[in-house]
């Protein structure tokens, strides 16, 4: 039982990371039907920017977090403008390939300028931990979980209570109709990318702090798993990404703890294939059929 609860705690903090990344995937897919392959790399860039903020500008943790989120928000908007906007009317394959190109570009540029080796992330958060009822809880885990929840709540507020949020929802449903209603579709899409990227950046820094290391390819596996999470919860549905993130995080820690950590990644991919076959619209999604 104790093992189970311990894994649960670990799973919740891992899950919140996946949820933060998954939100970016789901929002972008919801609004322009693109699987942003480069999103995992945005998480990596966020970690590196945070790293630079702390080591070069000597920022404490939270300012570094804000700095990185802001930087990545802008970067996300720039990428959207240059690489994705021109392909808005192209085939999905073309857009996906472009996203792959962006992903590689980000990875290798980082390698070129920051070096390909693993870098140690400075320990800016205390690594204090407590033992309650025999369960170990890290201060950092609490920060991760709390930060994620706060950001997700903020996101929900933006999406449900603000004008831009309403615009985002409208464009997701029908971009042309939204345009006719006076919504600035381009700005809305840019904003969506900005938020998604900022959330991914936050996840990146939190991971950097927790695991103490970052490397240019750190975005690949979490990116893919976060995508699985987004699909699991229902791609395009924001609460779905949150649910999916926690589900995948918990699954991974459970498999790691009870079965074998070697195959934990494979299990997640198998889960992906199963979802796609059984209920592709995800846990919270609705089935849509093509009109003939």
């Amino acid at each position, binding site marked *: 039982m104790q093992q189970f609860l311990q894994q649960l705690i670990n799973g919740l903090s891992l899950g919140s990371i996946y949820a933060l990344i998954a939100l970016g995937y789901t929002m972008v897919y919801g609004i322009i039907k693109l699987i942003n392959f480069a999103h995992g790399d945005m998480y990596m860039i966020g970690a590196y920017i945070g790293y630079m903020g702390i080591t070069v500008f000597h920022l404490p943790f939270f300012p570094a977090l804000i700095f990185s989120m802001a930087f990545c928000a802008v970067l996300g908007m720039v990428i959207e403008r240059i690489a994705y906007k021109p*392909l808005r009317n192209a085939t999905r394959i073309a857009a996906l*390939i472009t996203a792959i190109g962006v992903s*590689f*570009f980000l990875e*290798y540029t980082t390698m*070129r300028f920051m070096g390909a080796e693993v870098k140690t992330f400075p320990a800016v958060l205390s690594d204090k931990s407590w033992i309650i009822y025999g369960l170990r809880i890290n201060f950092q885990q609490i920060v991760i979980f709390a930060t994620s929840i706060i950001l997700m709540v903020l996101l929900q507020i933006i999406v449900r209570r603000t004008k831009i949020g309403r615009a985002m929802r409208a464009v997701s449903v029908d971009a042309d109709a939204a345009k006719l209603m006076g919504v600035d579709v381009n700005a809305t899409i840019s904003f969506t990318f900005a938020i998604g990227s900022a959330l991914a950046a936050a996840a990146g820094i939190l991971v950097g702090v927790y695991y103490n290391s970052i490397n240019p390819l750190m975005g690949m596996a979490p990116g893919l798993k976060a995508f699985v999470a987004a*699909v699991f919860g229902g791609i395009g549905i924001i609460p779905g990404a949150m649910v999916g993130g926690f589900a995948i995080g918990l699954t991974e820690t459970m498999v790691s703890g009870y079965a074998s950590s070697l195959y934990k990644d494979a299990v997640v991919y198998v889960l*992906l294939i199963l979802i796609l*076959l059984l209920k*592709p619209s995800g846990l919270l999604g609705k089935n849509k059929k093509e009109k003939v």
Partner: protein
Amino acid sequence: MNTTIFSRKNLLWTVFIVALFTLIEVLMMADIIGAYYKITLMLIGINVILAVGLNIIIGITGQFSLGHAGFMSVGAYSCAITIKMFPTWWGFGLGILIGLGITFVIALLVAIPTLRLKGDYLAIATLGVGEIIRIVILNMNITNKAAGLSSIPMLNSFPLLFGFATLSVILSANFKNSAVGRACIGIKEDEIAAEAMGINTTRYKTMAFVFGALLASVAGALYASTFYVIKPESFGFAKSIDILVIVVFGGMGSLTGSVVATLALGVISLLLQPFAELRMIIYAAALIAVMVLRPQGLMGNYEFSLPKLFQRKKRKGEGA
């Protein structure tokens, strides 16, 4: 209209291929093409096999598969393990056949459920499959886990590779220019319409997928017997992307494009070798540029035709 396999067109092609092969062999024997370039040529040959196979899946049938490297690794490991035990020509042949057999089973198992998916979802599912294959190989004892296999007998040679590459292109062209190919192209254009025309779309999609996977398996076997070490990470997602880039650059649906692009990118890769990381950045930027500016790739739908080339020359001569 050709009525048999012994047609003028096939004769012209045979002459062309033999001439090309002879030229390259001569250049190699005269050491104009040195050892370093020879390795590049071998790699290009292997990539041609991978590219045309993937083009049949993606370009001709419209099924977006991102797990191609997975099948390559199955072929590579099967062959490597076999020829380490039997380092002879028979062993080599057996290795290739075993690889084909295992690939066939895996491809079929993967195809039947996943080809129901469309577009992006299929892409991600095949990506997942490729990763699962890689992780399984990474954790098996017979494949020596992360250390990979080394001291693999280098039974491959340029003539053998050239032969396999040529055969792959011929088989792919035969696939495309047939009722099977037409059905697959119909599926790519409009799957619902194709079904309404009586085409069993699942059957043809599976055929194309398995065909491509088998070619990848052969490529993998040839790779293992050329570069005497293989590791799981040689066949990861990055490799699948490498081949995808070639197919996209060349033009999805154009086999000529795949061959040309393999060559072009192989040469460019060679030239940029001294600038390792910069090369990938340029690669990635170029990929983005191609998709934004010319998404149909170099050749679009165009296929090179020897007879047509001579016809045009003849007509020009007559007009003069």
